[in-house]
Every structure is written in C-alpha cells, then in structure tokens.
C-alpha cells in the first residue's frame, strides 16, 4: 500500500524547507512541491474510488507512548475529501494568489506550513495530534494576517488570535476530559467513539459544551462569528483564500467528530439546528448592508458554514456526509471568489461595489469566474455545492421535518444579493473603471483549476460519495 499521507507530508515539508532556503524562487519552488502534493492527494482519491475503500492507516512512530499517543495518520472518507480540497486550494493560493508579488518568500513559507497543518489535522487519527495541528495552523494564519495584509491587519489579526486561542484552550480542556473519562484512557478517535457512551452524563454535557463552543468559533456561526469579517477583509488574497477555504473547515470537521464521538450531542441537535438556521438568515441580512466585495464574500462563508452546521446537527448519514461534501465544495467556491476579488483589486485598485463598474469589459476572466463562483456558492446544479446542499437538506428534513429546510431562505437571499452585485458592478458596461494593471497567466490558470474542480465534483459526485456509504 502506497503511504499517500506520508508522501504528501514529506513533499510539503521538503517544499517548506526549499522555499525557506531559496528566497528568490520561493513561489516557484512552493508551487512545484504543493502541486506534487496535490497530485498525490488526487491519486489517493482516485485509487480509493477504484478500490472502493480508503487506504489503510499509516503509523509512523510513538509520540508519547506513556499516553498511548502514536503519530498515526489515516484517511476516513470525510478526511480524504477535505484533504483533496485543502491540497488543491493551497496549491492555487500559492501559485496564483499573489498578483502583486509582495513578500512572496514569507507568504509561500507560511502557506506551506499551513497546508501541512491542515492536512495533518484532517488525517490525524487521534485528538492529540489533531490539537497540535490545529494550533500550528491557527498560529501560522495569525502571522499570515499579521504580516501580509492591508492597513488595519494588525487589529484584525489580534482579534482573530484572541478568538482562536480561546477556542483552542477549550478544545485542549475538552480533549483532556475525554481522555480521563473514557473507560479505556485513549486519545484515539475510533476508541473514543466506541467507549464514549460510558462517560458520565454530566461530564458528557461539559465536554460537548466546550467542544461545541470551540468549533462554533472556528466555523464560525452567528454569536461567535465576529472575528471573521475583519480577518478576511484585512488578510491578503492568499490569506483569505486559505482562511475561508481551509481554516473554517477545521471547525466543521471537528463538529462532525463531536457528533460522531459523543452520543449526547444528538439530544441537542434541534437547538443547534435552530441556532444555525438563525445564523444563516441573520447573516444573509447583515451581508446586504456591506459594500466591500471581500467583506460580502466573507459573510457568505458564515452563511454557508451555518448551513453545513444544519447538516451536521441532523446527525444522520445524509446530513453529516452532505456537510462534508458541502465543505469540499465550499472550499473551492469561496477560494475562487476570493481569488477573483484579489484579481479585481489588482486590476482596478478598487473593492467597493458602489464604484466598481464594468469588470466584464476590463477583465473577462475575472468577471466570468466571479459569476461561476456565485453559481457555486448558491448551489446551482452541476456545481459541487448543489450535491452537498441537496444531501444536507435531505438529512435535515429527515431529522427535523420541514423545519430543517428553513435555512434555504438564506441561500435564496444571498443568491439574490450576489446576482444583484454581479449585475450592477461586474456585468454592467455603461460605465467603465480604468484598468490599472492586467492580471497574469497564473491568476487565470488558478481560476481555471478551481472552476474545473467545482464542475468535476458537481458532475461526478460519485467519486467521493461512493466512499460515504449513505
């Protein structure tokens, strides 16, 4: 059996070292190694599709043998999907997310480190390794926002790190509680799933509350989302792409783990569904009062993640796997939108939709990629989000009858608003803003890659869903 995850991690690590060692060619070297990692990830997906099962776990060494923690990486169907998504999005971010070519050395190194932590997190077989990769990813992104971003980046970065460190402390505490209250003391996720039902009720409630808040901050959803709009607006294009495309999936993946591990969580599913629905609809109204194109896109992340939370809260296979598929799709869609926003900013030096006019005549590829991105975000058929959303709502309606589908309103609302934006500032040809600088080949290629995967996973969902056994 070919050790896919080991190969991915090794390639990325080699890429990281090479990018640090070669400051002048860091972007080229980084793109090369992350492209190789992407190919390995895609071939892992293809090989598991052909064989009908995910590859076997890969155990490397004992990390802390006294606590039974081994450095074991494994694919579950969900983590395989997310790994493929993360490797593609990170590659595109490294290759084409930086048309200004500013601080390429720092950006590439941080992105590669973040990619390592993201893939490590999705593939970790125990919560200890999960937590380590979580924190490494968060700190890396903190520096990504803090060092490379627009004028108010420092404030946004600090807000981000305060929320995230709070979340990770809750996470650490919950993980320790899980370890000491499961009958066989273990951090191993499969062992915990087997033994979690014998954790005393009140401890389970405590663990659930801690994990739920931690992951809700990271996803994010309504009451705890305040770090996200600022962080996305102030981060560089590359930063926003991985922040929205990959980091928010940490929380989604964690939430799926919570529902798989703790039997008590299904008791609260109706409340979580209500919260998520409220969050989706509320945020879609908040979004309409915004003018900054990056801020608008950032808010759509919250809406989509709330809908994913609806899917997870239904706690049945359709909902959970639908949420996983929607996360895969959302990673492509949102990073495409941020890439377009960055390219538009590069072309016109403007991000305000009130003065942005006639993008279609100045930068055709950006304009149509933006339209495709909107399709992908609102779940138009043949895009990957459609498959994910359909599965989520099947699951939600099964669990909560018709109330599960209330959050469709949010999709309609953001769809209407985004088409309005596209009509007014992207597609209008009456007024034209003067073009400052055209985007290069790499941006167009990046958009093409993302669009390709959006439609690939939209038209051939069975590549992934066959592994899901729903």
């Amino acid at each position, binding site marked *: 059996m070919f050790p896919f995850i080991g190969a991915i991690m090794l390639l990325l690590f080699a890429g990281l070292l090479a990018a640090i060692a070669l400051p002048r060619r860091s972007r080229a070297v980084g793109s090369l190694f992350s492209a190789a990692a992407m190919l390995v990830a895609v071939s892992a997906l293809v090989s598991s599709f052909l064989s009908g099962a995910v590859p076997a776990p890969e155990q490397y060494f*004992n*990390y*802390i*043998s*006294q*606590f039974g923690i081994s450095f074991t990486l494994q694919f579950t169907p969900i983590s395989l999907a997310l790994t493929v998504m993360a490797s593609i999005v990170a590659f595109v971010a490294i290759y084409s997310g930086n048309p200004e070519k500013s601080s390429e050395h720092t950006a590439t190194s941080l992105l590669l480190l973040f990619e390592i932590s993201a893939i490590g997190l999705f593939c970790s077989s125990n919560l200890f390794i999960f*937590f*380590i990769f979580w*924190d*490494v990813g968060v*700190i890396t992104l903190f*520096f990504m926002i*803090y*060092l490379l971003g627009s004028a108010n980046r*420092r404030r946004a970065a*600090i807000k981000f*790190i*305060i929320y995230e*460190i*709070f979340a990770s*402390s*809750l996470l*650490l*505490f919950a993980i*320790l*509680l899980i*370890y*000491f209250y499961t009958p066989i003391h273990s951090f191993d996720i499969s062992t915990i799933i087997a033994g979690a039902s014998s954790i005393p009720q009140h401890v389970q409630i405590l663990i659930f509350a801690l994990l739920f808040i931690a992951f809700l901050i990271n996803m994010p959803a309504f009451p705890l989302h305040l770090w996200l709009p600022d962080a996305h607006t102030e981060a560089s294009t590359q930063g926003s792409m991985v922040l929205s495309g990959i980091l928010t999936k940490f929380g989604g993946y964690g939430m799926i783990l919570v529902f798989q591990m703790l039997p008590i969580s299904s008791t609260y599913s109706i409340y979580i569904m209500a919260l998520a629905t409220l969050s989706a609809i509320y945020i879609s109204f908040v979004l309409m009062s915004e003018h900054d194109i990056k801020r608008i896109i950032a808010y759509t992340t919250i809406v989509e993640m709330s809908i994913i939370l609806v899917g997870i809260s239904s706690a049945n296979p359709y909902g959970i796997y639908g949420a996983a598929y929607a996360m895969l799709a959302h990673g492509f869609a949102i990073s495409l939108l941020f890439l377009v926003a960055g390219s538009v900013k590069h072309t016109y030096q403007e991000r305000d939709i009130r003065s942005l006019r006639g993008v279609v005549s100045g930068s055709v590829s950006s304009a149509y990629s933006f339209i495709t991105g909107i399709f992908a975000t609102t779940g138009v058929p043949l895009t990957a989000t459609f498959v994910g959303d359909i599965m989520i709502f099947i699951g939600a309606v099964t669990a909560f009858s018709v109330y599960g589908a209330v959050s469709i309103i949010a999709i309609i609302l953001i769809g209407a608003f985004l088409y309005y934006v596209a009509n007014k500032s992207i597609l209008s040809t009456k007024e034209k803003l003067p073009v400052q600088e055209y985007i290069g080949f790499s941006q167009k290629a990046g958009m093409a890659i993302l669009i390709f995967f959006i439609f690939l996973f939209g038209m051939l969902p069975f590549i992934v869903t066959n592994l899901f056994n729903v």
Partner: protein
Amino acid sequence: MPDIGYAIVALMSLLVFSSIGGVFHRKKTIQLAASSLILVALAAVSACALYLQDSYSVLGALLINPFSMLFVLLFSFTLLLINLLSYDRSSDYPSFSLLFSFVVVGALVVAMANSIVTIVLGIELTVLPTAFMIIINGKNFVEPAVKLFIMSAVSVSMLVFAVILIYPYDPALSLMGYIANPGIAGSYLVMLSLLLFIAGISFDAALFPFNMWIPDVYQGAPANITALLSGVNKKVAFVAMLEILFVLLLHLSPIFSVMIQALAVITMFFGNIVALVQNEVKRLFAYSSISQAGYIAIGIAAASQLGVESSMFYLFAHAFMIIGAFAIILWLESNNVRSIQEYRGLASRNRWAALCLTVFMLSLIGIPPFIGFIGKFLLFSSAISANLVWLAAIGVINSIISVYYYAKVIISMYSGIEKTPLKMGTSIGIVVIICLIAVVAIGLYPGPLISAVSTASNTLIAM
C-alpha cells in the same frame, strides 16, 4: 558502579578549586573553559548514571538514583548555559566564577540530598552566592542584592525552624523513606513544620504570597543573574519541595495538596494579571515566571505519580524556555533595548532573534508543538486525573490570559521597521540555539524525557 558517584563529588570539588585558582591567575578564557568543561563532564557523568539506573548513596550524604541524576543533569546543563551567558556580561568574571561554583555545588547537593539538613544547606548555598553575584556588578545593584539576601535569610530561618520542629519525631532527618519513621505521623507540630517548609521553600519557588521580592530583584539584577534565579534557583527550590513533600511528608499528602492548590491558583492569577500591565520586558518575564511557578505547583497539588512526573517535566521545559528568553533579553539590554516600545521593529533588525524569542514565548503560552505545550498538557492531565477538574480549568483560563501579554511583545517585535541591524554575540547565540533546539526537539519528540521523568518519579516516591 559507585565510582560514578565519587566522580560527581570529585568534579564538584575540582570546579570549586579551579575557581579559587581562577581568582589568582585571573585569565577569563581559561576559567570559562575549565568551568564549562567540568560542567559538561558533570552532565555526561550524570547522563551515564541515569542510563545505568544506579541506586546507592555516596559518602553517606549524597544519593545517586535516577531522580537525583536527572536533576544533576538538568542543573549542570542549565548552569553551563548560564556560565556561557555570563562570560561577556560580567565585569569581574573570575570572582563571578568562584561564586558560581558555590551555586553549582548547592544545586547539585539539593538534587542528591539524602536528608533535610543537606537540603537546607544546599538551598542556602545556591541563594547566598547569587546575592553576591548581583552585588559585584557595582553600586547600582546593591538594592536587588540586599532584597534577595534578606528574603533568603527569612526563608532559611523558616526552613531551619521547620527542621527543628520535625526533629523529635524523626531524629534521623533522613529522606531514605518515611516508612522507617513511624513516629512522624499525625502531630500538630509536624503539621506546623509542613507549613513552614512550604512557606520557606515558596520564597525561592516564587509562589504567592512569598514572591514579592521577585519582580524587583529580577528587574534590578543583570539579566544573566535573572536567568540564573529563574532558570536554576527556582528549580532547586521545587526539587527540594518535591523531595520533602513526597518522601518525608507523603502521609500528609491530602493536607499539603489543599495548601498547594490554593497557592497554585493565587500564584497563577497574580503572575498573569500583574504581567498584563507591565511595560518593561524583563519585569514582564519576572511576572510570567511567577505564573509559571503556579503551573508547576499544579502537578504537586495533584499529589500523584503523574503529578510529580508532570511537575518534573515542566521544570525541564521552563528552564530551557526561560533561559533562552533571558539570553535574548540580556543581549537586547546591553544594546539599550528594554521596554516593549523599544522592541518595535526587532524583526527587521535581527529576524532570527525575533523568531527565537517568538518561539520561546509561544512555548511559554503552551502552543504546540513546543516543549511548553507538552508540559502544560501533562500538568492539566495530572490535575484532571486527580479529580481536580476545576484546577485544570483555572490553568487553562490562565493560559488564555497569558496570551495577551506575550502577544503584546510578539506584535511589537513584528511591527514597524528599524534600519539599524543588531548583531548577537557568539556566546549568547550558542545559548539561544541550544535552548531553541531543546524547546523544539523535545516538543516534537517528548517520549524519552517523559520516560526518564517517570523512572525518576518512581524512585522518588518509592525511596
């Protein structure tokens, strides 16, 4: 092999004699080479003994077992780093070296002590020379030196009183095992003596409310002595606390556990909250060092095998983190960079130094994959496994609070651009790199250190 024990004693006396010689010939380089070599030899010999897992006593006064050898290894290694740091910094290196050799002997004697009297002697031998090491730097250093001297006098008088109180119940005063002294159980005088032991040691271990001298002395002393105080003296006090509480007074563990819990909680909150408003980086690290003492106390409060292990692990972790951080602070201090505002743009002046300091601070917060995370993870685990979930929760809350002031320094270093580059001296650079390697390498692969610590805690509790 009893020879190894004699080798340690021989090396200790060789160090003292070579330092006495150094005062006369006054050749700095030779003195540095000699003391460093002897410390390396001590580290090597103790590592060898640790590997062989010997267990016997030497000269009837010093114990050689995995516990003592582990801390002889730690102390000789950290003292070696501080010796390197002090070379450029001290105006009178040969005199410093002589006083320093006493500190070495004191620290090693505490690690290997087999009776309470030896422990008190060893603590005294580490603290008093430190006060003189501060004062030989000039008139400006009288105040911190006197503060340290008076506080150590108070702490020693408490310890001696504690020893006197326990003497009627345990005339041997031996740490060879409390089972041999059944007369010790359950007297109020023994309880009082326990109280005095904890109070006396808390002066050096920086536990609230006995830590009021810490910020002034840490800030006033030269940074290499601050590193010594925080990296070695505090560890010596904690080792003494482990030995006294878990060998001599183990039967009182329910009582001292409650006391240490209270001390841990107050110390953590005090250190972290006061650190929030500090503006001078050295003083900030003094308060951070207080709060870290609170974390170490969590493990002692758990009063279990895992608790002892985790405290011992964190002693290692904190020694490397804080010595690395103080090495960089020392270097910046000699370039007149002191307050958080003056740290602005450090990343553009010397990016590697900024990166190293960032790593040390992230590790102090407890961010993986650094050594501090593993340490805090073990400490909180020990609290939860001893059914002290609330104590672990308070530890976690304090970690969150501490993010703020460490982040303030990190942010200051990475904002703004300063044109004039700063170059780091070789000896400080070596210390920083060694600490960085320890922090990252043990963080990535903590297995060997954890198993060493667990063997050591076995011998401590079964002694």
